[in-house]
C-alpha cells in the first residue's frame, strides 16, 4: 500500500472500470452480440416456418402454453433439445439441429444435461396417448425410467386418470418439437425397410434373458405376463396387444420391435443390441405358442370355405384379399391392418375382436356376424399363415 506510486493496473477505479465494466462489455459484444448477428444472416428458416407458439390472432396457442409448463417444471434440466453432429446422435434422434429451428424460443431450451433422451425430434415419434401414460407414470411405458411422474396434471375419474388441459398443452408442445423434420424422423423410427428372413440359433441363456429384457422394456404396457394388461393400459388406444393370443415367429417379431408400430403406442426398439432384440423376440414368440396350437386345430374345409367368403366380402378391403394387410382402404389406416400371412391368432381372440372391434384402430365391430361366422373367419385367418411355425 504505497500511496500514489502504485501502478495504474492496481488502482481501484481502473480495476473496476476496465476489468469490471470494460471486460464485461467486451465479452458481451464479442461472445454474445456478434454471434447473434451471425445467426441473423446464417439461420434462414425454410418457407412457411412460423411461430408455433401463437395462433393466428397472436394469442398463446396450446403449444405455447405447453412450452411454459415444460420450462416451469424444469423438464429442460434433464432433457436437452439439440441433436449434435457427433456420437451417432443423428442415428438415435434424427437430423442434426439447425439454428433456425429455435428462432422462436425465448428463452432457449437447449439444456445442458441428458438424464432422459433429447426431445428436439419428438414430433411424430410417438402418439399422444403414449405421452399421457408416460407423464402420469413414466414407469408404465418405460419400466426402468427414473423420470418423475406428473400425476398433478391428471384428474382421477371412474375410468381412470384423465389428462387435464395442462397435460394436453404439454403434449401438444412435445409434438411440435422438430415438426419440420417429422417425416424424416418417422421414416427413420418406423422403418419398414427391414425384412428379416431367418433366425439365429437360440442361445441357451436367451430364454431367461428374454424374460428379463421383456420386464425391463415391454412389461409396462404389455404386462408382466404379456397379457396386455400393463400399467399403461388405461391410457392407450389401441390397447397394448395381448401377446398370449397371437403367434409371431421370432423373425417377424424382430422386425416389429425394430420398426415399431406406427399409429399405436408401440415404439421402435432399434437402439437395443441385436442380441437383446432377438432374445425378446424369442421370448415373445414363445408366449404365443398355445394360441398357435389352438389356431391350427380350429379349421375344417367347410368352415374355411365359409370363412373365405366372409373375409373377401367384409375384411379384404382393408386386410387385402390375400390377407397381407395391404387392402386398398388399408393403406390410409394407422396402425396398418394386420397381415394374416405372418401371424396366427387364437380363435377366441378373433371372436372377441369381431364382436368388440379394436378402438383406436380402423377395426370396427361386426355385429351382423353370428358366432358360427366368427369361428369360420378365425379358421380362415389361420389358413392364411405362410410363415414357418
Amino acid at each position, binding site marked *: *500500500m504505497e*500511496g*500514489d506510486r502504485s*501502478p495504474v*493496473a492496481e*488502482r*481501484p*477505479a481502473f*480495476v*473496476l472500470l476496465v*476489468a*469490471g465494466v470494460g*471486460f*464485461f*462489455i*467486451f*465479452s*458481451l459484444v*464479442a*461472445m454474445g452480440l456478434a*454471434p*447473434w448477428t*451471425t*445467426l441473423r444472416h446464417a439461420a434462414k428458416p425454410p418457407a412457411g416456418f412460423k411461430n408455433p407458439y401463437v395462433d393466428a390472432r397472436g394469442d398463446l396457442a396450446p403449444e405455447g402454453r405447453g412450452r411454459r409448463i415444460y*420450462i416451469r*417444471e*424444469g423438464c*429442460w*434440466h434433464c432433457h436437452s433439445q*439439440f441433436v*449434435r*453432429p*457427433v*456420437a451417432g446422435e443423428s442415428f*438415435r434422434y434424427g437430423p442434426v*439441429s439447425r439454428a*433456425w*429451428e*429455435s*428462432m*422462436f*424460443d*425465448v*428463452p*432457449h431450451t*437447449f439444456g*445442458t*444435461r*441428458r438424464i432422459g433422451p433429447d426431445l428436439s425430434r419428438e414430433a411424430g415419434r410417438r402418439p399422444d396417448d403414449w405421452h399421457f401414460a408416460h407423464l402420469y407414470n413414466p*414407469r408404465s411405458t418405460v419400466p*426402468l425410467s*427414473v423420470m*418423475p*411422474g406428473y*400425476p*398433478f396434471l391428471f384428474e382421477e375419474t371412474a375410468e381412470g386418470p384423465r389428462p387435464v388441459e395442462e397435460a394436453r398443452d404439454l403434449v401438444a408442445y412435445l409434438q411440435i418439437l422438430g415438426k419440420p423434420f417429422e417425416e424424416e424422423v418417422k421414416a427413420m423410427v418406423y422403418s419398414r425397410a427391414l425384412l428379416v428372413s431367418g433366425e439365429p440359433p437360440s442361445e441357451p441363456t436367451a430364454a431367461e434373458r428374454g424374460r428379463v429384457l421383456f420386464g425391463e*422394456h415391454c412389461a409396462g404396457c404389455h404386462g408382466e405376463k404379456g397379457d396386455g394388461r400393463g400399467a399403461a393400459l388405461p391410457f392407450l388406444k389401441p390397447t397394448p396387444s395381448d401377446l398370449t393370443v397371437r403367434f409371431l415367429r421370432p423373425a417377424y417379431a424382430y422386425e416389429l420391435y425394430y420398426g415399431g408400430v406406427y399409429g399405436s403406442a408401440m415404439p421402435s*426398439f432399434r*437402439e*437395443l443390441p441385436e442380441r437383446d432384440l432377438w432374445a425378446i423376440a424369442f421370448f415373445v414368440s414363445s408366449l404365443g405358442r398355445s394360441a398357435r396350437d389352438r389356431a391350427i386345430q380350429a379349421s375344417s374345409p367347410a368352415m374355411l370355405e365359409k370363412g373365405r367368403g366372409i373375409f373377401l366380402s367384409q375384411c379384404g378391403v382393408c386386410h387385402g384379399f390375400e390377407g397381407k394387410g395391404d387392402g386398398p382402404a388399408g393403406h390410409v389406416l394407422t396402425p396398418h391392418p394386420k397381415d394374416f400371412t405372418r401371424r396366427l391368432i387364437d380363435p377366441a381372440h378373433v371372436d372377441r375382436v369381431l364382436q368388440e372391434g379394436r378402438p383406436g384402430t380402423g377395426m370396427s365391430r361386426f355385429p351382423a356376424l353370428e358366432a358360427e361366422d366368427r369361428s369360420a373367419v378365425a379358421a380362415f385367418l389361420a389358413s392364411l399363415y405362410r410363415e414357418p411355425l
Partner: protein
Amino acid sequence: MDLVKFHLVAALSWLILGMLAGSVEAYRLTSPEAAGFMEAVPWLSYGRLRIFHTNAVIFGWLTNGFLAFTYYAVPKLAERPLVAAGLARFNRVFLQIALAVGVVSILGGYAEGVEYAEPPWWADVLFAVSFVFAVINTIGTILKGGPGAMYVTLWYVGLAFVFTTLNFVMANTIVAHVAPGAAGAALSGLWIHNAVGLWVTPMGTAIVYYLLPVIVRKPIASHRLSLIGFWTLAFLYPLGGSHHYFYSPVPWWLQMLAVPLTSALLLVVYTVVYNFFATMKGSWNRISDDIALRFLAFGIFSYLLTCTQGPFHALLSVQKVVHFTDWIVAHAHLALFGVFSWWIFSFIYFVWPKITGRPMASRALAEWHFWLSVVGFFLLYYVPDTVAGLMQGFTWLRGLSIVDSLKAAQPFWIPRAISGVVLLTGTVLLAVNMALKPAESGQADGR
C-alpha cells in the same frame, strides 16, 4: 461484526436447505418408485426441487458467505468502515427475503427457463436491488478507502461485484426475455459461465488471498503473479462461455474460439495455485492443527483438479463423450462444493472465534466436519459421479438406448445418494459447533 455473523448464519441455513433438496433428488434418482409419493405434490416435484437446490446453494449459501467475507475483509483492507452500514444492516434481511421469494416462486411453479437464473422477474428485481445495495457498500468502501494501491483481495472483490451486477441484469433481461434460440444459448453460456467465473471464482480467490497471508503470517509469494492471475481472469474468463454449448447450433466460429480461450484459463489457475504453494512453503505443518488452513489447502487441491478438468473438457473429442453426462455434474460440484464451499468453511473457522470472542466449541466436531466433507465428497460423490458420467457417455457412444445408460449409471448413483447424508451431517456439525458455547475448561482450539 453482527453483519458478518448474520450473513454466515443465513448462508449456513441456505446450505442446509440446499443440501437437503440435493440429497432428496439424488435419492429419487436411485429409487424413483419409492420416492413416488412426492410426485403428487407439485411443490416437491423433481424438476422444481432441482432448481431450488442450485439456487439455494449458489445464491443462498455462496452469496451470503461471500457477503459475510466482504463485510469482514473490505473495511479491514480499505482501512475504513462501510460507507453505508445502515443499508448493509437493512440489506442482510432484505437479501434473505429476495432469495426466499425467488425459491418459493420456483417451487410454486413460476420458474423461468434460464439456467441459474430461474427465479421469475419479480424475484429478479428484488435480488438485483439487494445486490446493488451490496455493491454500493463494497465499491463505495473500496473507492473511499484511500488513494493507495488495493490489496489483491480488493481487486477480486471489486471485479466480482461490478461484473456480476451487469451479468445478472443481462441474464434476466436479454437471455430470459429477448434473445431467441441459438443466440440465447450463446448469451446464456456467457451468463452461466460468468456466474461461476466472475462471481464465485474471484470471491473465492479473494478469500484465499486474504486468509492465507493472515493465517501463515507471511506475505503472498509473488505480487506479480497475483497481478497476472487477476488480469487474465478478468479478460479471458468471460470469453469461454460458449463451451457450455459445444456442437450446438451456436455459430461454429464461436465454439472454435472457445477451445483455445478455455485452455488459456490454465494460466489463470496456475498463478493462484503457485502463489498458494509458494506462500505455504515452510508452513505445511500447520494444516494438521489449523482447520481453517486445512480447508483452504484442500480447496486449493480441488481447485487445481477442477480447473485442469475445465480446459480438458473444452477439447472437442472429450466433449463428444462427457457432455450432457454426470461427469459435468461431478465437475460442477467439485468446483462449487470442493473448492468454494470449503473456502467459505475455512473463512468460518477463521472468523467465527474472532466475531464471537470465543474459540470454536469443539475440536472433535470440526475434525468430523472436515473429514466427512472431504472423504465423503471425493469417495462418495465426485469419483462415483464421474464414473457414472463415463458410463453414460460411452453407453450413448455405443449406440445403446437411454435406458441402458440409466442402468449403467445407477450403481454409481447410490454412493452419491449416500454422500448427501454424509455431507449434510458434516454441515450440521459445523452449525452445531458454531451454536455451542465452548466448555469453560476446554482447551482453545481451531483459531
